């Protein structure tokens, strides 16, 4: 095989695989605008009927609201907690640092079913099933590792010498934090907020157990209706979730372009 042929072959395979990775998501988004009775691709006619049905349903609307509220609470909580922890990890000198970090990251590795069942076990006893702030707290457990990884790389861009200089010039420790560390790490903080929101907004397994009937989130509603049938309304809901992902990835890319900082993406 000549080198030209080989390169072409490798390229063709990669293009095909990349297409395959993107295609299912794009197809759902296009099919959601179908005007047909069931999901056909390509659609024979276009309409927004599935969106009308989605947004016209009070249960779907309340699911949107639940998802938004829980997502915002999760992102604030995990970014604040994660920022303090990441800063301590970066500047603090203490024993068991590596062990502590891997402990803080374990919620990603432990199957979500295990976390969900265990938290549900306690929640059921204390009447916490269906309580939105509590669901946000549980989501924070799985969002925290995401935040920590993003903020650790963001805080790496803060030069300790700058902090020392501010200290020498009479700035208090809190002042250094607010005037030096936070502004420099800001792009990373915004990224962390965005991705922790997304983690919560997309989370399903923990929500299935904790949502109860009162606080169904969008993924839980999708799950419950998919157990019954694969109906086209879900395509519209899915497209909304995809749009939120695209929006957040876009915002993150924008922030990184404006100011080079840490990010969740491996390109940084």
């Amino acid at each position, binding site marked *: 095989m000549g080198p030209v042929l080989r390169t072409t072959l490798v390229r063709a395979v990669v293009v095909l695989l990349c297409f395959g990775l993107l295609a299912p*998501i794009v197809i759902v988004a296009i099919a959601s605008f179908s005007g047909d009775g069931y999901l056909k691709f390509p659609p024979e006619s276009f309409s927004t009927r599935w969106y009308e049905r989605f947004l016209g349903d009070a249960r779907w609307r309340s699911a949107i609201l639940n998802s938004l509220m829980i997502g915002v609470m999760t992102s604030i909580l995990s970014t604040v907690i994660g920022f303090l922890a990441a800063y301590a990890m970066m*500047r603090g*000198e203490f024993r068991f640092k590596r062990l502590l970090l891997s402990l803080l990251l374990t919620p990603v590795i432990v*199957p979500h079913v*295990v976390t969900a*069942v265990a938290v549900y076990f306690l929640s059921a006893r204390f009447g916490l099933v269906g309580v939105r702030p509590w669901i946000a707290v549980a989501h924070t457990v799985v969002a925290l590792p995401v935040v920590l990884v993003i903020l650790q790389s963001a805080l790496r861009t803060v030069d300790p010498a700058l902090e020392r200089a501010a200290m020498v010039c009479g700035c208090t420790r809190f002042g250094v934090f607010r005037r030096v560390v936070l502004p420099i790490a800001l792009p990373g903080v915004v990224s962390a907020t965005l991705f922790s929101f997304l983690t919560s907004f997309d989370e399903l397994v923990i929500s299935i157990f904790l949502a109860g009937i009162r606080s169904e989130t969008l993924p839980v509603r999708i799950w419950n209706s*998919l157990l019954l049938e694969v109906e086209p309304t879900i395509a519209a809901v899915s497209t909304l979730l995809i749009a939120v992902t695209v929006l957040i990835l876009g915002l993150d890319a924008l922030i990184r372009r404006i100011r080079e900082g840490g990010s969740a993406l491996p390109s940084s």
Partner: protein
Amino acid sequence: MPLGRLPAWLLLAPALLLLIGVFLVPIGWFLVASIMELGTPAEIWEEVDAVLFSGAVAGALINTNWIGLVVTLLVLVIGYPVSYALSRAKGVAFTLILLCIVLPYFTSTIVRTYAWMVLLGRNGLINQVLLGTGLISEPLNLLYNRTGVVIGMTYVLLPYMVLTLYAAMKAVDMRLLQAAEGMGATPLQVFLRVFAPLTLHGVIAGVLITFILAIGFFVTPALMGGPSDIMIAMLIEREVELTQNWPAAAIMTVVLLTVTLILYGLYSRFSGALEGGAKP
């Protein structure tokens, strides 16, 4: 600027409290309380024996391992060339390939699963195309069976493998490959004797992370599988939601958790070289 001992722990306190209060304690409590409920050690052992060697659980354990292995292998075979391309691409090509991996990666698992349910259904796109081209005369059963589960899980887990492999491949010094080529190695030899060994730790880390995530999977097999594709995580959910059989759920959780943590320990050894490559 080194912090004193006290402030560091003070800053870490909220994170630790959360981890202990909403993760470690609930898991410990759930396992201990549910298993203690069974009575004396002899009675506990009897129940463990009854649960683990019952047809349903044994079958689910076999399914879990089998599906996990097949999916991991597929993900590796598909992920390797994509990671390679990503690690060597520049400019627009890099951004495009990255987008194809990152967009699915950050899209909800349930949405990705639904997308494949739409594609693989009896009236789905794949059957429509195959029927249209005359390759088949009646629709294939691609959904609600093992094929569906494997396709769905492979799709969902692919980005984890690609991102892990990417970190290892990016670190390979291209000059080594050029040197080998310069000394007369064929492209196959360059790959087998230079590139593959240098990225082996990435492959092992990727295989471990994919398998760890696969055996804990619940959403995709529950929606895309049939009655004979029950995996252990689904069984745990059923024991809790349907029959409220906490002891049985706890025993299965111990098995799943033990395997997961052992493999994670192994993973940590191999991923040391690729800091943060596994999961953003």
